[in-house]
Structures are given as structure tokens and as C-alpha cells.
């Protein structure tokens, strides 16, 4: 899909190197923010944006993506493989 925004992650202890928010899928339910308010915010279009790509550890980040009711948060590892959603 076209309307995806990518956020690069540079955390030494992390296997996840990229967070992608699909803005067409995002409905602003804000479940990701409930799990990790340090990572995400809503913007003025009511879509999630990443404001702290390195803020959360991998398991919290994974939970934040899994919590999304529209699978709008995608996670990629250092080799560029999608780790969520599978």
C-alpha cells in the first residue's frame, strides 16, 4: 500500500530495525499508545505516528503492534524481513 510511513530504529539491544505505520489502515484506535505511549502519538489526522522509535524494548514494541485492531503497525528485522504481522 502506498500510504505507509517508515520509522528507523537504532537500538543496540533490538532485533527490530524498522517500524511502519500503514496510514490507510490506521483508524486512530490508539491501542498502540495504550501499550507504549513513549513510542506513538496521534497526529491531527487521527493517525498513529512514531515519536520515539527507540523508546520501547522489543517485547513491548511487539505487544503494541499486536494490540492494533487493524494490523496497521508493521515491524521489520535488520534483514528487512517482516516480523509482524506474519
Amino acid at each position, binding site marked *: 500500500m502506498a500510504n505507509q510511513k517508515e520509522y528507523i530504529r537504532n537500538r543496540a539491544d533490538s532485533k527490530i530495525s524498522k517500524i511502519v505505520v500503514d496510514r*490507510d*489502515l490506521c*483508524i*486512530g*484506535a*490508539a*491501542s498502540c*499508545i*495504550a*501499550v507504549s*505511549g513513549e513510542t506513538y*502519538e*496521534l*497526529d*491531527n489526522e*487521527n493517525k498513529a505516528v512514531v515519536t520515539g522509535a527507540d523508546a520501547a524494548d522489543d*517485547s513491548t514494541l511487539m*505487544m503494541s503492534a*499486536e*494490540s492494533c*485492531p*487493524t*494490523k496497521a503497525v508493521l515491524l521489520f528485522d535488520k534483514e528487512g524481513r517482516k516480523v509482524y*504481522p*506474519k
Partner: protein
Amino acid sequence: MNQYKYLIIGGGAAGISAAETIRQTDKEGSMAIISDEPHPLYSRVMLSKPNFFLGQIPFEQIYLKSKDWYSTNKIDFLGGKKAVGLNTSENQLTLSDGSSVYYEKLLIATGVDARPWTVKGSDKKGIHYLRNLEDGIGIMEAIKNLEARPRGLASRAITIGGGFISFEMADLLKMAGLETTMILRESYFWEPILDEASGLMLENAMIKAGVKIIKNYEVTEVLGREKVEGVRGEASRPDLEASPRELSCDMIICGIGVVNPIEWLLKNGIATNKGVLTNEFMETNVPNIWSAGDIAEYRDILLEENVQMGNWVSAREQGRIAGLNMVRDSIASSENSVEASNKQAFKFVSFYTTQGFGTSIAFIGDVTPKPDRTIIKRGSPEINSYARFIIAHDEIEGATLINRNLEMTTISKLIESNMKVSEHVKEIEDVNFDLKRLV
């Protein structure tokens, strides 16, 4: 096998979130999820969203877990079965197919049911609810299969009820090209959760998009032979006249609230009120039984009252806390620990958002109107951006936002901090004041 260390009744957001949380700590403990639906976890939220409903994204996108996820995580999925009986002294659950399952730790996360419309004729074909995947598919199919009306006129839909189902469905029905009429028993939209000014903002957005709204109207009969052809009604207030007496339609979508399926729990000592009562640890009054999600009426330690919060985000969080406490309790008892398990309390400001007709709505915390509550207003309908802060005991209990969703997370933090509002009323009222400065 019919005995499990962890048994979860309900395969929705709360149940799955609990299962995920348990598996983070206990990788091997036997676990089963009972669901009255045959599907793996799907997104109930997406059922009423335009991109799914109008087929703009693949249908499969609605599934949040694959069937493999359950087996990979060593979870038995007992789909298409309903829990119908519970014997707490034997730790035994009876299922709708007559079988029995035994548990060590049990989670009741059944969710709630759509309130049935009991008006005369409400058993006719063409009346829809939106509760589960089948309902969503049913509405999509019904719209596709509506018979063409003469001279190319659009088919006609009626929505019953003034809440988020009606709001989201009216948006979808308009997008699908139907002539859409919303019938409200109340005198404005979403009364009494919203004030009249907020309700009228939403009504205006809907009217602008071509939705007809009939207020103060009580349907007394659904017309038609086997299938709905229209409704007949009367004014919901004696001082008004019903207008119109009858209204034709081709389909009806009904969103008039929920009912709590607790009858099966009433004989076995589990404390209930409207829902299943729990403390702040999501524990019921019976040992080894927790509850989470829409059905749980939990002790909210931020609001200092018992509440039910029927939304996705809250269900996920409640499930996580219940799962955590279940697994910790299990570890504590297996180690024969004399110390109490390290319980975690559910402390969460719930929020719910929706969008439609170019308008965004957010509810934060507890927005139920009660006599001891006062309101602080921020913004106004005139600037098409309006928030209400609901105040009790000099603290913010909740807020309703229209076109101000940007402030949602900040307001959640203010509720969580138990900030005394009396010193900050002017700042809250000033739309140019950045609320983040109060956090």
C-alpha cells in the same frame, strides 16, 4: 484432554490478550480458549470501518491471528462452543455440546451481546445487528443483494439507536449509496452521554452528508410480510406529534445497546451486578476465577467505582492484567509459596475513538452522566472543535472530544494523575493553552 491449567472463556480481544500474556511467562502450561464463534481472533473494530466494509482491503485482513497461532502457542481452540454451566467446587465447566472441561485458573471473557429489539415485527428479515463477523458479512451481503427500486431510486436503510453503531453504520450506508434515515428515541444524538451541543455537531455532520435524522421517535411496529418494508411509530414524548406516522425502508440496522450474558453464572456463587464483578486485580469473588473485557464490571481504582468499559483498548489491557495475575497466581501456588503472589492492579484510563462524516469523536475515562458531576468546556461547536471535561470531587473523571483527538493522550494522563482541577479551570477552558503543560 479435558483438563487445563488455564481455561479462557471467550476468544476476543480480552481472552487472546490474556493468553498472550500467560504464554510470555508460562510457555508450557496447558491452555484452552473456548469461543462460541468458530473463527480465530478477528478485529471486531474493523467490522464497521469503511475500508473493510467497502472491500477496499482484502477480507483476510480482519483476522488478527491465524489458526496456526493457537497450535504454535500450544493452545487448544475449542471453537463453536458455549460455556453453559459452571461448578466452582469441582472446577468444572459444562459446554453447550454436553462435554465437561476442568480448569485450575479460569477467565470469564465472554463479551456482551447486542440488545435485541423487541418491538412488534422485529423478527422480520432485513433487520440487522452488528455484533460479530457473521453480522458484518450479513450486512454487506444484504446491501449487495437489495433489489433495485423502480426508476433507479436508491434503496433505503434505517438505523435505530443513537450511539456509535448508528454513527458508523450511517456513514457506511451513505458510502454504499443508500438513502439513510436515523431514528432516535432521544431528543438529540447520543443523549445523554453527550450534551446537546456535541450531539448537534454530529447531527449536522450527518445531515450535511445527506442522512435524514428523525428524533423523539419510538418505533411501535416493523411493517412488511416476511421482510421489512418499513416502520410505524409514535412520538417518544406525549407533548409531540409523530412525524411521519410511517416510513418505508428496505433494511434496518439496530444498535440499541448491549445485554450482559450472566444468567449461566447466577447459580454458582459468582458475584454479579450488571456484569461479572471483579476487584482491581480482575479477580472475581470465587478463587481461581478472573474476568476481563466487556463483561467484567471491575473496581476502577482511578475512578474509585465499579465500571464496565466496552471497547477494544480496555479489553486488551484488562485481558493482559488478568493473564498476568493468573500466571503469577499459578506460579505462587505451584511453588507452595506462603507469600501472596505479586498481583498487579488494573490501572488504566480507558479511551475509545471513532470517525465518520469527516468528524472524529473520542471518549476518555468514564463519561457517564451522574448527578454529582460538573462540566468544563473547551472549544465550541462554532469552531467545530469541542471538548467536555467531566468533573467529580475536583478531579477529571472523563472527557468527550469532538474534533480534538490530538489531546486524547494528554487528557488520559491528566485523569491518571488525579490532578485537582479547581486551580486550572481557566487554562482548561482556553483552547490556546497547551494542556501538556499540566501533565
